[in-house]
């Protein structure tokens, strides 16, 4: 009853306040070799806006790739060596914006904001002059030059499918045995209880493997989403996430007494958070602290971030070892809890 | 027992595809009668009861219940009958009184009527003190007796009882039948199915269905005489053993 009445309230609050596509305080990097009056004041203006927060200042073009791969920086602003001079002499200058387009929506929004700030600056310094200054912005979309939505949703769909198939179906089939009374007979047989459960989970493990394969094939050959990183690593991480999902399914099945309950728990406790908090629909960075904290216990968040790094950004285990360890920890924790809760008897 | 017919069935038939569940049964039930409706599992009892209570359309034949036609006036039939089964009876999470109110309300009884009769019924059941207790806290036997009282609360002409005493202890079973007798004396016709053969003896008349047909219909005494046996159990076994089909 509480859930039925409370859910709409919670959802409205989450959607209304926390989950917005609006981008705030995004971490950016600045490469400013000229360090002149114009760049300083433009950077100051960028920092003054609520959209950006200068996270690091870099000193060479070589540093650009690595900082993006670390994943913290969403946008880099690159000034040429003699920005102010160009501006003063030719009334024209160049700025390059490089965005992490593995999330095309965020990349698009950020470059738009940045362009607006630059235009604003250009208009301000032009206002008392006859000949207008022109600041050209050149944009580069890193990882996803065409800003394809598929780059974003393929990892999201992978997380969701695995979760649905493994968690929900495992939970439901086991609970179904309880409902039908067949669990009762199976328990009074020499079959080891845990073998029953493993036997129930294996088909879904296989099924998910087929699902992962078909999603990847479709992505590569139909949607033109490349697999930039190691395929082996991607498959390994996917299996890891599948196992976490199975463990969650087992945990639910040990608690739920009816198929409806199992389904409801799977949906409310897993599916909704996955959709809302994994970063797939709404960027996690923009959520208020409480939600960001909650999002850390959503396994899909870590998996989603891994898939994006490996598949789209093409980076290796050295960059995702932290996420991988977290997923492994979750696997051990949930599996342990499921085994502890598994009943060798009826009540 | 009067000679007013409250149920008449003529060649009543129900087919599901090419399976004839109820095969041209004809019988009458009189007002205030306790009519036992026996048959092996799958003989067609449930289907026949569903047709008579307006829940299922017959394929062919004629039937009227409480003076209403089963084809055209099934809503009126529902107003004039009560129904109770072993499986569906009361809401476990409501109290005794709430259950009564709920069912009486469905049949459109006035608040005044409900209030007065509730007190009466609870007294008869010796449940006055338990009126505000949840039904699930009552022992099974009491639940069954309460369910019967609820089924006849709106004073229907006929009450259909589908295995009302299954699994009930022998003492409560007899108390239950005593209630059936009292209802019949008050003019309510009782149409009852049971697996207990001793209960068949308590009926005024008994019909025995075999393979969708009514193979025997008479008083228990006459049935025993006809088949030359000493108990209803033997009558039933003699008839039901002839059954060819065994599907449920």
């Amino acid at each position: 009853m509480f859930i039925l009445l409370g859910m709409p309230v919670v959802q409205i609050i989450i959607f209304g306040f926390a989950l917005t596509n609006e981008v705030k305080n995004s971490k950016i990097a600045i490469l400013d070799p000229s360090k002149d009056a114009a760049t300083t004041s433009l950077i100051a203006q960028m920092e003054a806006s609520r959209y950006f927060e200068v996270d690091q200042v870099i000193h060479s073009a070589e540093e650009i790739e690595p900082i993006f791969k670390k994943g913290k920086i969403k946008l880099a602003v690159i000034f040429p060596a003699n920005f102010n001079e160009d501006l003063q002499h030719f009334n024209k200058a160049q700025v390059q914006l490089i965005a992490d387009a593995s999330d095309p929506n965020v990349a698009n929004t950020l470059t738009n904001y940045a362009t607006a700030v630059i235009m604003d600056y250009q208009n301000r310094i032009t206002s008392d002059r006859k000949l207008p200054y022109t600041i050209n912005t050149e944009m580069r979309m890193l990882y996803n030059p065409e800003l394809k939505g598929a780059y974003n949703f393929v990892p999201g769909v992978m997380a969701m499918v695995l979760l649905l198939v493994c968690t929900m179906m495992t939970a439901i089939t086991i609970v179904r045995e309880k409902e039908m009374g067949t669990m009762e007979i199976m328990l009074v047989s020499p079959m080891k209880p845990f073998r029953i459960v493993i036997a129930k989970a294996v088909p879904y493990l296989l099924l998910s493997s087929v699902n992962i394969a078909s999603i990847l094939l479709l992505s590569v050959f139909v949607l033109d989403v490349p697999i930039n990183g190691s395929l082996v690593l991607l498959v390994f991480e996917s299996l890891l996430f599948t196992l976490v999902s199975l463990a969650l399914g087992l945990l639910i099945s040990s608690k739920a007494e009816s198929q409806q309950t199992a389904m409801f728990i799977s949906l409310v406790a897993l599916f909704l958070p996955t959709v809302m908090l994994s970063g797939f629909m709404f960027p996690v960075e923009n959520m208020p602290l409480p939600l960001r904290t909650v999002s850390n216990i959503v396994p899909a968040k870590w998996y989603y971030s891994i898939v994006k790094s490996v598949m789209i950004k093409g980076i290796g285990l050295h960059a995702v070892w932290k996420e991988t360890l977290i997923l492994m920890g979750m696997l051990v924790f949930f599996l342990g809890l499921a085994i502890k809760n598994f009943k060798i008897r009826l009540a | 027992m009067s000679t007013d017919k409250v149920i008449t069935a003529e060649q009543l038939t129900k087919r599901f595809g090419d399976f004839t569940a109820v095969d041209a049964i004809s019988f009458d039930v009189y007002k205030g009668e306790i009519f036992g409706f026996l048959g092996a599992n799958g003989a067609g009892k449930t289907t026949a009861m569903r047709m008579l209570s307006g829940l299922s359309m017959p394929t062919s034949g004629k039937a009227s219940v409480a003076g209403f036609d089963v084809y055209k006036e099934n809503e009126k039939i529902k107003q004039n009958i009560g129904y109770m089964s072993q499986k569906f009876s009361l809401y476990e999470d409501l109290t005794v009184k709430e259950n009564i109110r709920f069912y009486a309300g469905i049949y459109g009884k006035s608040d005044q009527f409900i209030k007065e009769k509730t007190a009466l019924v609870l007294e008869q059941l010796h449940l006055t003190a338990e009126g505000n207790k949840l039904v699930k806290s009552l022992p099974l036997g009491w639940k069954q007796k309460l369910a019967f009282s609820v089924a006849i609360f709106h004073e229907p002409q006929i009450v259909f009882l589908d295995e009302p005493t299954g699994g009930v202890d022998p003492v409560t079973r007899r108390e239950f039948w005593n209630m059936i007798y009292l209802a019949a004396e008050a003019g309510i016709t009782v149409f009852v199915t049971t697996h207990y053969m001793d209960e068949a003896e308590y009926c005024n008349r008994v019909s025995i269905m075999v393979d969708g047909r009514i193979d025997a219909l008479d008083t228990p005494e006459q049935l025993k005489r006809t088949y030359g046996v000493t108990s209803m159990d033997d009558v039933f076994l003699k008839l039901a053993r002839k059954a060819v089909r065994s599907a449920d």
Partner: protein
Amino acid sequence: MKSVVVNNISKRYGSKKAVTTALRGISFEVDKGELFGIIGPDGAGKTSLFRILTTLLLAEEGTATVDGLDVVKAYKAIRQRVGYMPGRFSLYQDLTVKENLDFFATIFNTSVEENYDLIKDIYSQIEPFKDRKAGKLSGGMKQKLALSCALIHRPSVLFLDEPTTGVDAVSRKEFWEMLRKLKEQQITILVSTPYMDEASLCDKVALIQSGKILSIDTPEGVVRSFGKKIIAVKSSNMLNLLADLKKTELLEDAYPFGEYHHAVLKNESNEHELKNYLQQKGYPFEIKGTDPNIEDCFMALMKN
């Protein structure tokens, strides 16, 4: 060695606030190869007892052994050697008859062929339907399949929880004939039922009500211990007759019993006085002495 020993078992359900007691200190023993009936109405605690003995539930108090093995400590070993048929039909409804049987044979590390002689009599009756889905079988056939599956590994003790509930008289008779035959194979059978008339088919019975055992004995022993004389009476108006019987001081109890009413005499020598009493009422009646049966005993025990 005793096949089943139950020692002072109690079982409660629910939290501290609302406790329902299913079993209150039950004890009994079952010999090897015995057909032991546990007879009582719904809610008497039969299913709880069976689940404790099949290691599915833990009792709060007391101990029990099956085949000499403790039901708590040696649950794995017990699960190897008992057959269990729960009250509710618990096979895979979307598998066929044959598939169900093969499946359970595999689970118990055996094959259908290995123990076919044991289930032959029962299984041959449903064999013509072996490709039918179990969910589409009639009640009687489901029951035969469930029994075949419970027997497939040649268990030493067979637990049948209300196998005949909701089953018509013909199928019930057939079922008990099957149990008789199984007994010849030296399998101990514990069977629960709410039908009192099935008691006479057991070697020994425990009458159970509200979690307590009222009596444990052979069916004949239970009847013998009734100790009172029962008179069967009938007339054309049974309701009036019952009312009159309830009024007289001569009787311990009077209740309907099928075609007749049973009148339990307080004193065996009072039969003649009862006849006189009824004659004064001025209607024709039939009266005869009769033997008590399990149901009479159960009611008498319930009232104590």
